[in-house]
């Protein structure tokens, strides 16, 4: 298991390097680079100095290596310095956002809590909704409940979150006035009323994302349960006189959870991607909103960094899913 994990980790490195190269080149080679936006009134020798100062006259691969060094050495060093008060990074140049002139990672650090509160709650809620529905649908296959579950899941797949989100806004905010349309990031939870306010403003984005996730996960849960229901060990358990409760919730559920857990792990990065829409719709000031803001403001370092972070998330969670699968299912042996 350990060797497998190590091997996968080693394999993940070239993947990450390749993705970083794609992202770097995409942004670097694109027309409309910042160098072309230096005003024409700037004299040529000053322009030349500006380009040199930014390091833009170096060959592409030198700039790529420097960017990698910033990303993988300077930024983590800064993080360690921040935690332990050491001075690993020294005065090295950090990745700066062109919008705010602040280090990109500082901005991201400010944004991540918002994303995690909303998206994390939504994902957990989605799983909590999906599990019982999936289990019961499989237990009573082709029943009315199962048919309804299939229909609702199909609709949940098909209705894009930006439409279900706008529908929620129209119904719950515009017509019923239950929840605010926009998420207020500056709200501090200090006492009971502010906590209620926080719950209220979280309700809609969380519901939208949770329903979308629940649709997919409940289907996986159902098919995984169905696969196990017909197995011999289930018949044995019933023959031994176990109650239905024990058979379904102990024997079948535990085995059915193995593939579902990996699906859940694989879904986490796409949640961050999908959250871009929800965050924009409801005005949650998280990293998805930061990405869109950076794109509209032509803030290339921010865009590069965020896109790369999304890629890292995907690779890492793929790895976690693989390792989890091996850990949970004793039949899987990677060696």
């Amino acid at each position: 298991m350990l060797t497998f994990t190590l091997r996968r980790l080693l394999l993940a490195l070239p993947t990450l390097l390749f993705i970083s190269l794609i992202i770097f080149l995409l942004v670097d080679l694109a027309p409309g680079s910042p160098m072309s936006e230096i005003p024409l009134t700037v004299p040529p020798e000053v322009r030349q100095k500006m380009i040199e100062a930014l390091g833009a006259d170096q060959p592409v691969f030198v700039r790529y290596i420097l960017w990698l060094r910033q990303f993988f050495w300077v930024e983590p060093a800064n993080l360690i310095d921040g935690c332990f008060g050491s001075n690993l990074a020294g005065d090295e140049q950090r990745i700066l956002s062109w919008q705010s002139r602040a280090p990109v990672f500082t901005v991201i650090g400010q944004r991540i809590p918002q994303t995690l509160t909303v998206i994390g709650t939504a994902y957990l809620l989605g799983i909590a909704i999906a599990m019982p529905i999936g289990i019961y649908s499989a237990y009573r296959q082709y029943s009315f409940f199962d048919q309804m579950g299939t229909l609702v899941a199909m609709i949940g797949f098909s209705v894009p979150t930006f439409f279900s989100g706008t529908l929620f806004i129209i119904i719950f905010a515009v017509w019923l006035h239950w929840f605010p349309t926009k998420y207020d990031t500056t709200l501090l939870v200090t006492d009971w009323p502010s906590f209620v306010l926080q719950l209220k403003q979280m309700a809609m984005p969380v519901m939208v994302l949770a329903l979308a996730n629940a649709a997919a996960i409940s289907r996986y849960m159902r098919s995984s349960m169905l696969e196990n229901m017909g197995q011999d060990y289930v018949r044995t358990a019933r023959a031994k006189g176990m109650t239905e409760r024990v058979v379904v919730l102990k024997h079948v559920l535990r085995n059915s959870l193995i593939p579902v857990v990996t699906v859940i792990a694989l879904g986490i990065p796409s949640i961050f991607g999908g959250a871009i829409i929800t965050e924009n719709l409801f005005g949650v000031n998280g990293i998805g909103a930061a990405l869109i803001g950076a794109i509209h403001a032509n803030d290339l370092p921010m865009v590069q960094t965020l896109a790369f972070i999304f890629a890292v998330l995907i690779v890492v969670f793929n790895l976690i899913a693989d390792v989890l699968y091996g850990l949970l299912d004793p039949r899987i042996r990677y060696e």
Partner: protein
Amino acid sequence: MNEQSTAIPKAQSQFGAVWQQFRVHRGAVFGLIVLGLLAGFVIFGPLFWPEVKLKVVEALKVKNQGPSLRFPFGTDQLGRDMMVRMMAAGKVSLAVGFVAMIIAIFVGTGIGILAGYFKRLDGPLMRLTDLFLSLPLIPLLLVLVMLFRDTIASGLGPELGAFLLIVFAIGITSWMQAARIVRGEVLALKEREYVLAAKSIGVPARRVILRHILPNIISPVMVAATLGVAEAIITESVLSFLGLGFPPDFPTWGRLLFDGLQYIQLYPERVIWPGLAISLTVLSVNYIGDGLRDALDPRIRGR
């Protein structure tokens, strides 16, 4: 099948058998009908509901109207007929979905066949597929559109430029599933006796692939293609929804929704119509895919 009678049942064409199984799937038939209606509305609608060119003063008078006999879907903030816009937008949305799907299926099938059939290419091509699968798609598409929109628009005109850029970007980032499915199928087919027989009499690889392998992987490819249309339509509307898709005078359903969002408190119907159209299209396409999967699978067919 027929135990009582010794008469051989009338031979059924493959298409007939597939159609018979497809008809049983209620959701799939519903999907086909809804998609047909939507396509008819989009393609033939403008013939019956031509755009009326209004003068500026007239347009100002009829702006922001609710549904009426003259404007069944109302008008927008510039006095444009929402019905006409819905038709025009739908045409683009559906076209994006289909063209992007065709690109994705073409690339995916090609790579899948090469990886499955030629052992030497298998490793590198599948690594490539894995790499593409770990790319963050939505952020990457947003960046692509942001960086290349203006250049391509100045070269090809804003409409064609936006269309080609988005279709190409979506197509090139969504072929991976098809490639994986096709590779799996080809790996299994390659070892079948008829392929071995063809190889042993010296049929060149190109002909083996075209004559013996390709026709046998049509079913999974068709299912993947159907589901690909739905995905492409959603991706396009996400881009348009974030304001990085089509220009406002060349709208798609996603763009109409984005435009309507500013007026959501006063005129929620402007958001609901395009959103409903997108959702219905995707829902019916997904159902058709579901039905096709059942109908094309000979193990399920005839049960």
